[in-house]
């Protein structure tokens, strides 16, 4: 009954606290969230073993103080970059379930290497199309039920869609929600700040109730994880470029803007789509890769994203059997010790 926890200390702190009205997630709050997760796990599954990313702020280590759960930090080399989340996830491929704290960027990094392990993604980021706002105690309980085998993960943790990126030189990349081409010239503060710089976007899901590019696409057409296609958007490149459609969408937390669209289309799963530079590629809301003028990139929607746990469905699925012996017995055993 191994449960992984990856809490990203860097999430929820970027420039969008200034350019928009995004929430600040300080690391004490993240630690409190993990503490409630741990309480949820411990309340149902005292024999669970916690394996956690040893972040620089000791978010999870601090949250485990006072817990009687068996726990150990992942033995890994840290870089202080998003690679740490990817590396931590790689070490957790044996776990029954992983809990993450972060935004889309964090879960993108985790999704690169987690494989089929169910992921409970708690939102502590900025653009939160992938993770969810959810009471952490419930998330911990859901993790415990999964670890104990009390629920069918096929039912409560279906695979999401993902975007696979292949560069001309054979390098590959990965995004969960969106791949966006922009006219930005520098990585800078990473966030995509100016909608007038949008060139194109490929979306795995388009949800008008979220923020960011998925919300823009979602205002034209709702595309969920259940749909067997994604969405493509293109944007007018100058003021005389005709734009047939204007949508009002939440481009960032607390920031609703009119966005002019040139074209909207669907892209079938597994059908590659090619783009030609020069552009800055942003993945899940962050500028990540410069594409030269003569360089092409291929983007493909596939149904092999992380298996995201629906916490509500997970807990509700055990309601008829809350007195299941595997729950009660383990508590008794632990108390007897």
């Amino acid at each position: 009954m191994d449960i992984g926890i990856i809490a990203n200390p860097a999430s929820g702190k970027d420039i969008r606290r200034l350019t928009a009205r995004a929430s600040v997630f300080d690391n004490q709050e993240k630690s409190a969230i993990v503490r409630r997760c741990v309480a949820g796990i411990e309340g149902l599954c005292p024999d669970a073993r916690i394996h956690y990313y040893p972040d620089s702020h000791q978010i999870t280590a601090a949250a485990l103080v006072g817990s009687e759960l068996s726990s150990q930090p992942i033995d890994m080399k840290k870089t202080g970059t998003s690679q740490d989340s990817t590396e931590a996830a790689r070490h957790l491929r044996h776990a029954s379930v992983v809990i993450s704290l972060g935004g889309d960027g964090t879960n993108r990094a985790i999704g690169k290497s987690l494989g089929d392990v169910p992921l409970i993604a708690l939102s502590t980021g900025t653009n939160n199309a992938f993770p969810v706002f959810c009471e952490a105690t419930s998330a911990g309980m859901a993790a415990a039920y999964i670890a104990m085998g009390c629920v069918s993960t096929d039912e409560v943790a279906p695979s999401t869609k993902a975007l696979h990126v292949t560069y001309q030189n054979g390098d590959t990349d990965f995004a969960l929600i969106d791949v966006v081409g922009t006219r930005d010239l520098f990585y800078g503060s990473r966030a995509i700040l100016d909608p007038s710089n949008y060139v194109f976007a490929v979306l795995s899901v388009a949800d008008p109730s979220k923020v960011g590019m998925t919300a823009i696409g979602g205002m034209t057409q709702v595309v969920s994880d259940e749909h067997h296609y994604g969405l493509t958007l293109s944007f007018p490149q100058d003021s005389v470029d005709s734009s047939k459609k204007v949508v009002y969408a939440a481009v960032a937390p607390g920031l609703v803007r009119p966005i002019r669209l040139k074209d909207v289309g669907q892209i079938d799963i597994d059908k590659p789509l090619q783009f030609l530079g020069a552009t800055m590629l942003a993945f899940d809301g962050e500028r990540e890769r410069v594409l030269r003028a003569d360089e092409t990139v291929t983007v493909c929607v596939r149904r092999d994203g992380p298996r995201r746990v629906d916490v509500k469905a997970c807990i509700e699925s055990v309601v008829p059997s809350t007195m299941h012996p595997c729950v009660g017995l383990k508590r008794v055993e632990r108390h007897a010790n």
Partner: protein
Amino acid sequence: MELNNEVLLDIHRRMVRIRTFETEAGKLAEAGKIPGALHLYVGQEAVASGIMAHLSNEDWITSTHRGHGHLIAKGGEFGRMFAELFGRATGYCKGKGGSMHISNMDLGMLGANGIVGAGPPIAVGAAFSIKYRKTKNVAVTFFGDGASNEGSFHEAANMAALYKLPLLFVCENNGYGEYTAQANHQAIVDVADRAAGYGMPGVVVDGMDAVAVYEAADAAIARATAGDGPSLLECKTYRFFDHVGVRGMGLTYRTDEELAEWQKRDPIHIFEARLAELGVVSKEEAVKIHEDVLTEVQAGIEFAESSPLPDPATLLEDVYA
């Protein structure tokens, strides 16, 4: 503010001016030609340059004991700066301030300061004056992770947020308060976390990336001038030299490996590489810019060396008490 070629060249030039001045100042200090302690800014150039590219002489800044970079980025002249370091009468403070008190009101530079954490309250006063006079300027206070533990910082943050002052708190978190690693002097990793406690936004910025700093400053200045109050920008950075003087390698309080990792992200090298890719500044042009700045620095040193020492009769002039 649009990030056009003119702005890019401006940021680059500010960074090169700081790096060259500080490198040569370090050599002079090691040669025993500069009296007193010298806290050099090499490695942190992107912070001062990315911020100061937005400011005019009517915008005020307060600095730290590591203040040369701030004054250079604000427009300081090499000759008068070296003269101040040498204790000459032609220096910005007539040779009486030295490295840690270098200042110039005409440039809006309210002073380096040998007292850790002394700058923020001064900047609060400057920001209050801007608000009182109803101009569209801002004040910026630079401080370090160590200073963020001082009461003066917290009092300044409280008052600035209370009065919604046009003030940027810029924490240059280089990981060390003098010789003490951050983990040994505060229980947090992100100083930006402290902003929420005073009712202002705090963000973490890559302090080795001049454009990241520039963008964050742009947003914070827009808030400030719109009357929305102060912001805290925590710029994660690193000094390549020792706390005092030059020696970077072989120090006991940090490892050479750590330094080498940060040097891979040298803010000037990163910026020049991208400028070359974009065709803004070729590698050859960058070399020429460095050479030209070095010539300027050498002229500044000659000016300073040939300048007179202050007349002892002026000892009690220009002092408060």
